């Protein structure tokens, strides 16, 4: 990829710019097909695209569930809400 390649009618930089939209399912069918054609012919973009998608998957799988607040924070929040209702 040191030399920009044009495959599927797209250059590597255009694929880079569209990776999020691709992963989020926001591209038109023709644009999606063009990216997939480029990636089939460009091993560098295929590798980087795979790493990009793997990172998004890992984010969602590992970190998407928020921990609850610490118990003392929860207690003070509840107390503040009680005060606001009674005050």
């Amino acid at each position, binding site marked *: 990829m040191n030399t920009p390649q044009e495959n599927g009618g797209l250059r590597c930089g255009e694929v880079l710019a569209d990776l999020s939209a691709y992963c989020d399912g*926001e591209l038109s069918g023709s644009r999606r097909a063009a990216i997939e054609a480029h990636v089939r012919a460009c091993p560098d973009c295929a590798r*980087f695209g*795979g*790493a*990009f998608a793997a990172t*998004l998957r890992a*984010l969602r799988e590992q970190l998407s569930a928020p921990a609850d*607040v610490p118990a003392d924070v929860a207690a003070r*929040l509840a107390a*503040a809400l009680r005060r606001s209702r009674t005050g």
Partner: protein
Amino acid sequence: MTSDTPTDHELLTAAAGGDAAAFEVFVVRHRGAVYRYVHSLTKNVTDAEDVLQQTFLAAWRAAADARVEHGARPFLFTIARHALHRLHRSHMLITEDAVSLEELGSRAGFAAPHVTAERLAQAVEERAILAAAIEDLPPLEREVLQMRDLDGLSGDQVAAALGIGLEAMKSRLHRARLRLIAEVRRRVPTEDCL
């Protein structure tokens, strides 16, 4: 309430009528996400707790007017964001940097001939590496990544919560994701040829 698991809309409607127990259920459901959001931006437990309390106090007062048919997180994050702005105006006003997308891609390994997706995929499977990489993102990018990828808000919801257009949100999110990969890559030993 119409089911065993009331919706956010049902809980806030009940809260608007003075049902403190319904609001408590609402608070328990969302306090972790709100706290994570504000803590990730303040990196300070005292300020995070302050904003957490302000957020739910404001939500209680605004329960009658809240539009949460599609979930309450955008509503809560918007309140929290305003509270954060009041508390940390200078911090939150950090502007987006001028690094080009190509440069961000390069830092993430896009132009690296030896990048190995397998090694990077291994690195992102290490929760500590991923969490540390998020911590090192600029606040605006950390914020959009958290709302969209960690809390699962839709693009429209994130854009509304951030007060920006959808395309601007998408651009910021893409930069955040590339910078996250760059931060993960920076944490992988160089002998792994990433």
